[in-house]
């Protein structure tokens, strides 16, 4: 699948999901387990994406490198209630500095 096909498919599916909320009758989605699982989906996906992005090598092995240092700084700043851009920028700077000096 070419990248463009993937990009446009992701866009179409995202819009279909958004529109479904407006078109589907309330009772169809108003099932207890749907309401329990739906808020947990982003938690599971984001947690997995963090692990993949910060702690795994290309071969899927766990490694602690400059990225982990960046994430540690990000968590510290989130505890201190810093805003999104500050958190993301600080993580980048931290990782770049660790790479430059170690």
């Amino acid at each position, binding site marked *: 699948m070419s990248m463009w096909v993937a990009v446009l498919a992701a866009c179409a599916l995202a819009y279909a999901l958004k529109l479904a909320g407006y078109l589907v009758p309330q009772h169809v989605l108003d099932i207890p387990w749907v309401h329990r699982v739906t808020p947990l989906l982003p938690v599971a996906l984001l947690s997995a994406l963090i*692990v993949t992005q*910060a702690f795994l090598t290309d071969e899927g092995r766990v490694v602690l490198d400059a990225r982990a240092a960046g994430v540690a700084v990000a968590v510290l700043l989130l505890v201190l209630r810093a805003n999104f851009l500050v958190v993301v920028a600080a993580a980048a700077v931290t990782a770049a500095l660790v790479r430059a000096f170690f």
Partner: protein
Amino acid sequence: MRAGLLDEDATVVRKSLAVAVATGTYGITAGALAVAAGLSVLQAMALSLLLFSGGSQFAFFGVIGAGGSPVAAVASSTLLGVRNGLYGLQVSQLLGVHRWKRALAAHLTIDESTAVAVTQQRTRQQRIGFWLTGAGIFVLWNLMTLVGALAGSALGDPRAYGLDAAAAAAFVALLWPRLRGRDPLATGALAAFVTVVVAPFVPAGIPVLAAVAAALVVGLPRRAPSAAQVDR
């Protein structure tokens, strides 16, 4: 009465604009991280214009950047977008929109527009909050995506600037406010564990999808009705 109404309008307008500026600005990361993952500037823009949901966009180029297949990227992005459907269910009651306005409202249905709308007391302010927050973010998000994508492609090697750590930090910042309570914490921990365990054995992008099992394991069983009913 009239002055009171105008005050409430002004309050929701201020709140909507503040949220729009705060959220729209980090569209710069959506652009920079997209090109860092290997997408073109046009593809980054297509995602911001047409997909327009930060978490799903970050998931898409997170999987691509890790060397995952486009199919896995689409799947992760789509699973992260499921919540927007439930938001639509909520706000469609407040907005009372039909035809082209409904098609437009659906596109603007994201975390922030929903949050501002549902936290207002009256229908009028709910509608102002939804449209102003959604439209404000849409304009800024796309402008900043363009800035980020152009800057990102001018920078060269994304690792030298720590952009891979920036992507991880973006996911942490998106996850952070969702970690309140026992079920989200259990889900997050289990998902991380599943990812680490399966990652060496499957292609990139698949561990993220396998981790969805964590949401099902934690969310599906609810045998003791007491806890669930107190939540409502």
